[in-house]
């Protein structure tokens, strides 16, 4: 069990709790239950939690599958700096958000699930986990001009005409070296194998 990142599961659980809060809130508000205003709160809290938890953090090892379209929310969540990075903050935040929804039966399930998620985040925080945003690395286009040194001033030495014809046949087959000026997208270095 050495490589578990609890925060990843806490993230899934929190996202699910957000959705449950929204659903319970809609039921209570639309059905005009007694104390339905807790339902309205629940919808707002659920939406906030879903937005906060939607961008998945980066895994410590290996590549992370991004959620569809998460890069917009990643930018927003990143702005909060330590408040979004630190999982202690998230644990306390979720615990706090879950309390008001506990007063209404329709949303109490959301409270329970969010409280569990808060507990898992607490566990993650005690193990030193942190939320790191997934950023796409800018692709470095190799600078063509910088790697090609001075173009040769003399033409390459060529063997006599008959040998040249045979050589060009072999070259077609080998698809190897190409002669003549050509733009190389990748820097070409000579290697003696």
């Amino acid at each position, binding site marked *: 069990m050495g*490589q578990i990142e*609890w925060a*990843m599961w806490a993230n*899934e659980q929190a996202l699910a709790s957000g959705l*449950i809060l929204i659903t319970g809130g809609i039921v209570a508000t639309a059905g005009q239950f007694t104390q339905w205003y807790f339902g309205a709160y629940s919808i707002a809290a659920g939406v906030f939690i879903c937005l906060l938890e939607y961008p998945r953090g980066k895994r410590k090892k290996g590549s992370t599958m991004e959620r569809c379209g998460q890069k917009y929310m990643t930018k927003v969540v990143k702005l909060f700096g330590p408040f979004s990075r630190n999982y202690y903050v998230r644990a306390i935040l979720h615990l706090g958000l879950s309390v008001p929804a506990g007063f209404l039966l329709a949303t109490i399930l959301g409270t329970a699930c969010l409280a569990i998620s808060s507990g898992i985040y607490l566990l993650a925080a005690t193990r030193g986990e942190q939320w790191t945003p997934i950023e796409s690395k800018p692709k470095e286009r190799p600078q063509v001009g910088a790697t090609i040194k001075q173009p040769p001033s003399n033409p390459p030495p060529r063997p006599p005409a008959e040998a040249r014809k045979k050589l060009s046949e072999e070259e077609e087959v080998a698809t*190897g070296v190409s002669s003549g000026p050509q733009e190389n997208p990748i820097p070409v270095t000579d290697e003696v194998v």
Partner: protein
Amino acid sequence: MGNWVVNHWLSVLVLATWLGLNVFLFVHAFLLYEKADKYYYTREILGFCRCSLKKQLDHNLTFHKLVAYMICLHTAIHIIAHLFNFERYSSSRQATNGSLASVLSSLSQEEEGVSWLNPIKSPNMTVTYVTFTSIPGLTGVIITIALVLMVTSATEFIRRNYFEVFWYTHHVFIIYFIGLGIHGIGGIVRGQTEESIKENHPHRCAESFETWNDHNSHCKPPRFEGHPAESWKWILAPVVLYIFERILRFYRSQQQVVITKVVMHPSKVLELQMNKRGFSMEVGQYIFVNCPSISYLEWHPFTLTSGPEEDFFSIHIRAVGDWTENLLRTFEQQHSPVPRIQVDGPFGTASEDVFHYEVAMLVGAGIGVTPFASILKSIWYKFQHADHSLKTQTIYFYWICREIGAFAWFNDLLASLEQEMEDLGKVGFLNYRLFLTGWDSNIAGHAALNFDKATDILTGLKHKTFFGRPMWDNEFCTIATTHPKSVVGVFLCGPQALAKSLRKCCHQYSSLDPRKVQFFFNKENF
């Protein structure tokens, strides 16, 4: 489309029947509560009531997930419906307008305590209190939380990367099923008793509810009884089957597995050759493996890489996660008694179809090459012993992977097959092409320089390695021209996208004339 129907008609039939039954049961229960006289007074308070039924049938992973989604959907409907019910019970308990609903609500527990209808016993009781102090309410909350935990730990991301979280959390299904079985005890959903309907038929007496308590009225106050718990009837059979399966797995695992050979291949691949009494396999099957010294509860599936004709069975294990890394480390240390291994299986449908085609095109992508090890070995044995069940005359094997390091063992298998075929003088039987999709200019340059060597520098095989993905149009074209009158079976073990392009090519290159070349794409679930 026709091909798909032929391949899938049984699954579609089963699925349609199951869905149809679900719909039927739902509608039937719904109409019962909507229309039956027994529930007239219940409806008075509640408006309308819904009861959902959950059936579980475990066949394989896809069906399991489908059932899980259905359970979640029905759970949501069930909870929302009961929320409305409780709200209505609560408001009619608090109503003071003397309506039928409030009169019904105030029917209390006189005379053997069965005549009450409204579970909320006093105007001060909140719905939350009733929920947590009644068996249905409490079990409902607990098992729903269990369900949510199971679902969130079973998402693909968690399953693939943190398998133990998924595996151990999923075992709360035990709590779920126990809770589900006792969820109905308590009789909160109530209908009028038979005798009560004789004394107080709703169609006759509902209007005159103010006079029920008068001595000389024709209508006595109605009495109600609760439903007995019913969900156990639905889950009993599957639970028994599951328990039986676990017992069987335990029994099978106690049988001794003798490890006859351990081979460490490069790129962290471990090969285990084993023997077990009474074990017999077919091509393309897999087994579950457990190593108690690493983890008592974890069973992991591995495709069998040996042919059925060999006197041992083997698996190749690659270190990709916690359990596999631990296993490799344990075997590397070469302790004097080898760690004990438990085996359950074999499972999976045998891929017998491979042997029935004159020409077979086998495509294995990445790890998908493993079942083909078994298939190729088996084909070779059958060919050597002139087995008549083998119709195959030519095989085209396409092996596509990013880098061959992890499959160096498969390389060796191909090399030995190549050698044996040369010895038998049957060089054209197996034609294989290896495609390396993760190459760089170094490798390509290296290959170009060694162009005229007889064997490939990367694999040591007679056939040269190709770089990049195969151009299927060319391949199909070549095969169609080489075998103009044959039936070609195309088998794939790899990603969905590849399946789509192969299927397309099969349609494209199959001749319209049924006597000429026909390509059949077989979707195999390895």
